[in-house]
């Protein structure tokens, strides 16, 4: 269930920790980076590799909000609506995504291009409102720049 590339990365991670259990979060990150989400089969495979029961892997994986347990779109929009972004107009950006792409929080566009997740602060409050698209940070966004920026992610 894990690709050869993922296996190599997880083995490298294993060398950085003295115990296998500590490798659980980093290993789940490897899976998510590769597939965009963490499937039940992937959780089972990670558990076997690290000798952690699959129920435990699921319990840990589902605790953390950045791990996704359903397939995601090609690009993940992580938009902050916490207080600093809210007072600078983030809620209207959520409305823009709804209007332009029919995209709801925790939803994916019908063509599988974008998924949207609402974030709780991504540490760029001085240049709010902000979003991450995949691993790229975009700040000082408004309704116009939001749509222009997203246009570049096909």
């Amino acid at each position, binding site marked *: 269930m894990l690709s050869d590339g993922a296996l190599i990365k997880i083995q490298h991670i294993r060398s950085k*920790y*003295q115990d296998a259990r500590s490798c659980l979060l980093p290993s789940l*990150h490897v899976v998510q980076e590769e597939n965009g989400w963490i499937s039940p089969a992937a959780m089972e495979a990670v558990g076997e590799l690290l000798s952690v029961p699959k129920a435990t892997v699921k319990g840990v994986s589902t*605790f*953390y909000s950045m791990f996704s347990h359903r397939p995601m779109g090609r690009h993940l929009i992580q938009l902050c*609506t916490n207080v*600093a972004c809210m007072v600078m107009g983030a809620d209207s950006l959520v409305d823009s995504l709804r209007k332009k792409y029919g995209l709801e929080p925790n939803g994916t566009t019908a063509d599988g291009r974008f998924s949207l997740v609402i974030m709780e602060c991504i540490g760029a*409050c001085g240049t709010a409102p902000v979003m991450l698209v995949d*691993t790229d940070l975009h700040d000082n966004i408004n309704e116009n720049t939001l749509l222009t920026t997203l246009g570049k992610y096909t």
Partner: protein
Amino acid sequence: METFLLRNIGNPNSADINEYIKAGGYKALAKALTLKPSDVIDEVKKSGLRGRGGAGFPTGIKWSFAAAGQNKPKYLVCNADEGEPGTFKDKLVLEKNPHLLIEGMCISGYALQAEYGYVYLRGEYPQAKHILEVAIKQACDKGFLGDDILHKGVRFQLAVHQGAGAYICGEETALIDSLEGKRGQPRIKPPFPVNEGFMAKPTVVNNVETLANIPYIIEIGSNEYSQLGSSDCPGPKLFSVSGHIKKPGVYELPMGTSLKEIIYTHCGGIAGDKNLKAVIPGGLTTPILPADKIDCPMDYVNMPKHGSMTGSGGVMVFDESVDLVKVCGRAIKFLERESCGKCTPCREGVGWLRSILDRVAAGEGREGDIDLLLEVSKNIMGKTFCALGDSAAGVVQNFIKHFRPEFQDHINEAVSVGS
């Protein structure tokens, strides 16, 4: 003023090790390795440095607890889970000055006789992860990290551990559980991490900014360092300023600089020259202050006397146009989402606060809702393992303490529409 934590960050290649060395970097490490580990701890104690993550605990004292333990190995963990909304100072250090953190951790590891260090980094900071990993590799290649640091026989290994989106992991015991591959839920204290932390071994958890101060203390000496800023809480402090402010950003200023001076002198005042309504001075969960109560020194000792906290130094500025009931509701929605679910008063109570605030903000509030909010918050306060529940209760209590008429106005509108 001369900066230290943000020194050199104007240089576009400030994260590169050669630039850092050129600007005097890693000299403090070489100096520290000529001292005995216990002398390094004494220097930090004498400097008066207090932890910059929010609680303001004296760093040297924390270190001496861990150093006294015989149990081995010992661990040093950097708390880079900068999750407090309104805070973005550690990110700047991580991305622009990563070698300052690495040098600080290496000196601290030597002082504590810890051979392993981890940087527990927010999952939301993918750029910082990349920059830090490159920096760690550079430091290993130059002999500032590894099995024989500067040929002195000192060993310190450092790795980055990425979180995955959980505010509670900023709490040190939850952070340790997360580092152990578990759900990030706080442990009851005692035992404290300095006695039984990561893998049940003595573990010191320090914030990024705290560790970044260590090279400065070694460089100029504890005596000179202790003269900077407030006398009972010295050193430089990073302030993240956001909201309706002319010049938002991260500012390095002496600890004890007044909140008013930060806003009006350093940040140029309120955006659009509007009137100031309120300030949250130390990150979203610290007590809000009305505009006429901001002439107070931002440090860990004096701020509580003025009814708030310095916290992480995340200054959030709100002008007269802001609906504070909505802000309060959004803060509580955040804490509801981030409650780990371990303690019932927090898991259930914060949800009740959120649902009452939602209806008040939406103009559907009922007479008696303000007292109900206070009653629910009283039943959370002091009844949970960690401070998250207390934070939620405190946010509601402080917003109502200073802005009760605004809550009442929302309710009156609802009642008059209803009648």
